[in-house]
């Protein structure tokens, strides 16, 4: 499509459609956008032509890439430093086990069961090593676990797990040249300086209509993303770490987060997720459903193998440990980011990408369903006095009194 505004209208129209589906079917917008992207590419590809959606157009790639970077930054900034300080030992052990076991397990399954080459196998390991903090957080919030020590530990472990994935994605395919050293040095300098500079800078010049804070954050993310790309690494790596380091300042500024959220979910992530979905080949999935099955179960079994004993070591009961493990077996955002990285860098084929994304989506849905249906540690829920930051529960603490929700 030559006319850029027509193409933009098509993409935003698809985003709108995906949002409506998300509302009707009560699923997340991201998941809906991936599916809409896949179906739209299938239909538009057949009717108009394979490149009609323009997924590889420079400006679409830019908006989608920015979406991935800002989304990763927000994911890092959502870390609760207090929770991490409280549960750092457990989070570190479980999070590392949750990363290492599926990274090796899924890579081995791709290499030795599916016969993939070494590069694609490592990429499969990275994409399936993730967990989904957001999927877990939604479950924790809905069930009231987010205010319990148990729920906080799971969330902290998820952050460590994803940090492992992002670090590996940023480094495993890196050429390890002088540029890599410069990238590492620049990253360390930025990671040291940013937490000290950001807070005072925002206090001095922030809070104005000109949105200085947003520009500053985008400047830091694009700058470090540029250095990462130049060094042959991945821009989401510095974005996640910057987010984590600024979690105590930017992360606590709810107004700023809300403004970033508007920018991210209103414009950027629809391009990212629809684009990610548009590269999924339905014919490839239909032709070899066993590949998806192998990848999905490789992730599940290796997560079980790594996370279950790690959690058990912290003296949880069998039910709590199983639930904890299933929560750590979820995945979505970083899984798709890793798979898309592999596809855009020519590490994996379109078919391999399709199977990986399908396995990632499967891992977003299936473990949570099983966990909540069979292993929910009801006894750990904060009973009738649960707070959960939710008005849904305030009545419980006020029975017999007048409620002011």
């Amino acid at each position, binding site marked *: 499509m030559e006319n850029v505004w027509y193409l933009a209208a098509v993409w935003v129209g698809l985003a709108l459609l995906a949002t409506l589906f998300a509302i009707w079917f009560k*699923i997340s917008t991201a998941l809906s956008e991936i599916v809409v992207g896949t179906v739209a590419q299938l239909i538009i590809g057949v009717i108009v032509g394979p490149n009609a959606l323009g997924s590889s157009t420079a400006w679409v790639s830019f908006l989608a890439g920015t979406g991935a970077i800002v989304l990763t930054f927000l994911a890092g900034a959502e870390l609760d430093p207090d929770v991490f300080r409280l549960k750092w030992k457990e989070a570190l052990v479980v999070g590392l086990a949750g990363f290492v076991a599926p990274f090796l397990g899924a890579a081995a399954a791709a290499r030795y069961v599916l016969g993939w080459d070494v590069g694609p196998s490592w990429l499969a390991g990275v994409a399936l090593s993730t967990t989904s903090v957001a*999927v877990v957080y939604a479950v924790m919030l809905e069930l009231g676990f987010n205010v319990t020590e148990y729920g906080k530990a799971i969330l902290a472990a998820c952050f460590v797990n994803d940090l492992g994935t992002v670090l590996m994605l940023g480094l495993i395919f890196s050429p390890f040249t002088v540029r890599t050293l410069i990238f590492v040095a620049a990253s360390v300098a930025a990671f040291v300086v940013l937490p000290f500079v950001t807070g005072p800078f925002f206090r001095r010049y922030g809070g104005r209509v000109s949105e200085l804070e947003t520009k500053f954050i985008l400047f830091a993310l694009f700058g470090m993303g540029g250095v990462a790309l130049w060094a042959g690494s991945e821009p989401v790596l510095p974005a996640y770490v910057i987010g984590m380091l600024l979690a105590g300042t930017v992360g606590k500024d709810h107004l700023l987060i*809300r403004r970033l959220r508007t920018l991210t979910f209103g414009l950027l992530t629809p391009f990212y997720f629809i684009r990610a979905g548009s590269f999924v080949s339905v014919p490839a999935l239909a032709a070899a459903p066993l590949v998806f099955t192998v990848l999905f179960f490789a992730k599940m079994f290796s997560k079980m193998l790594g996370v279950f004993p790690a959690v058990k070591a912290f003296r949880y009961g069998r039910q709590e440990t199983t639930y904890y493990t299933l929560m750590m077996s979820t995945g979505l955002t970083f899984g798709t980011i890793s798979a898309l990285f592999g596809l855009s860098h020519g590490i994996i084929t379109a078919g391999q990408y399709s199977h990986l994304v399908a396995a990632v989506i499967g891992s977003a849905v299936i473990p949570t369903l099983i966990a909540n249906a069979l292993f929910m540690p009801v006894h750990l829920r904060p009973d009738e006095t649960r707070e959960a930051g939710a008005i849904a529960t305030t009545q419980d603490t006020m029975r017999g009194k007048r409620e002011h*929700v």
Partner: protein
Amino acid sequence: MYRRILVAYDGSEGARAALKQGIALAKALNAELSCVLVEEHLPHYAASISEVKAAKEEIDAHFRTMAKQARDLAALGGIDMETIVRQGHDVETIVTIAKDGQFKLLVIGYHGHSAIFGRIMGSTAQSIVRLAPCSVLLAK
């Protein structure tokens, strides 16, 4: 006869009718009146915590408004009403609260939930009538 009455409220036309009848009954019978509002689920399989938090904020604000509307309506009718806001499956939650609170009468609206799902799976009202531990008044 009905010392404790529970009304299920979701802001719909049918639910408003149920609330009005519940208020009238509570006044006539000098009964205690409570109102339950069941929050919808958070978006499943979100991409970021921000999305979940935003959804939660929206749901909370919406239910705060509805609970206040219900209390105001009861206050207009001269009834001091307790509002119970819970998250979960609507039928299961309403039935559980009716059971746990030992309510003697449950007042629900005939309409109010998705007509499509109602046709396929049986309406919320039908399921509540079937499962409720007490008498159910279906308001139109």
